[in-house]
């Protein structure tokens, strides 16, 4: 791990580490996209019920998670 390129090169296909880190990054992206679209829906008058239905989760779950969203 002597240079950035070397660091990247250490991650081979059968190294789970890079894959796990990518999953974590993907999870952050999903969360951010969800916040973004929930906020957009709320600001255009969608009910929690409608948002929950679109996301495929319960109304309680979506409200608990996103009530802080403007």
């Amino acid at each position, binding site marked *: *791990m*002597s*240079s*950035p390129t070397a*660091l*990247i090169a250490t991650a081979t296909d059968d190294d789970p580490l*890079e894959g796990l*880190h*990518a999953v*974590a*990054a*993907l999870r*952050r*992206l999903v969360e*951010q*996209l969800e*916040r*973004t679209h929930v*906020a*957009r829906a709320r600001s255009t008058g969608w009910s929690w019920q409608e948002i929950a239905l679109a996301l495929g989760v319960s109304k309680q779950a979506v409200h608990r998670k996103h009530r*802080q*969203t*403007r």
Partner: protein
Amino acid sequence: MPERFDRATSLAIKAALACARRQGADEVGGEHLLVGLIEVLSGPAQSGAVLGRSHVPGRSAAALVQLGIDAGRLEDAVARGAHDARLLAGLGIDLAAVRREVGDRFAVRWRTRRPRLRTDVKQALDGSRHEVRALGTRRIRGEHLLLGLLGSSVAARELLLALDIDPMAVRTTVLQVLADGG
């Protein structure tokens, strides 16, 4: 006797919180703590209102400048999502394209007063304790927290890599500064 965090470390946490708020994040992650730490360790020139006039730059300031680490550039990179971009590219996801698609709404502002500390930040705090123990001291300084952060936070390392800065070189340099009595 337990290790104690010094003033620079608590200032860095405050600066990290401020950075997370500016970015509209609901969590303080390793990428924000890296920005906060570099602000504090680089000194008052870049630090703004968070640190106040009494703050003097850490002795690692010159070394960090020499490595090309700059709090402003780091924060710009955080705003672009650079800490996750390479990992997502590995999955075939072009983060820049996603951000373009979603547009201005991507950074949703949160009402929460105080963003939570993400796990990698908590692990960095623990890691800094291990660092000072290994070095045989008890006072946890900003430099130790930086070492802990580099060890525990993928986001912090990825952020440096995105700016073509080698995290291992940063670690080596910080250890050298500490060894020189800095």
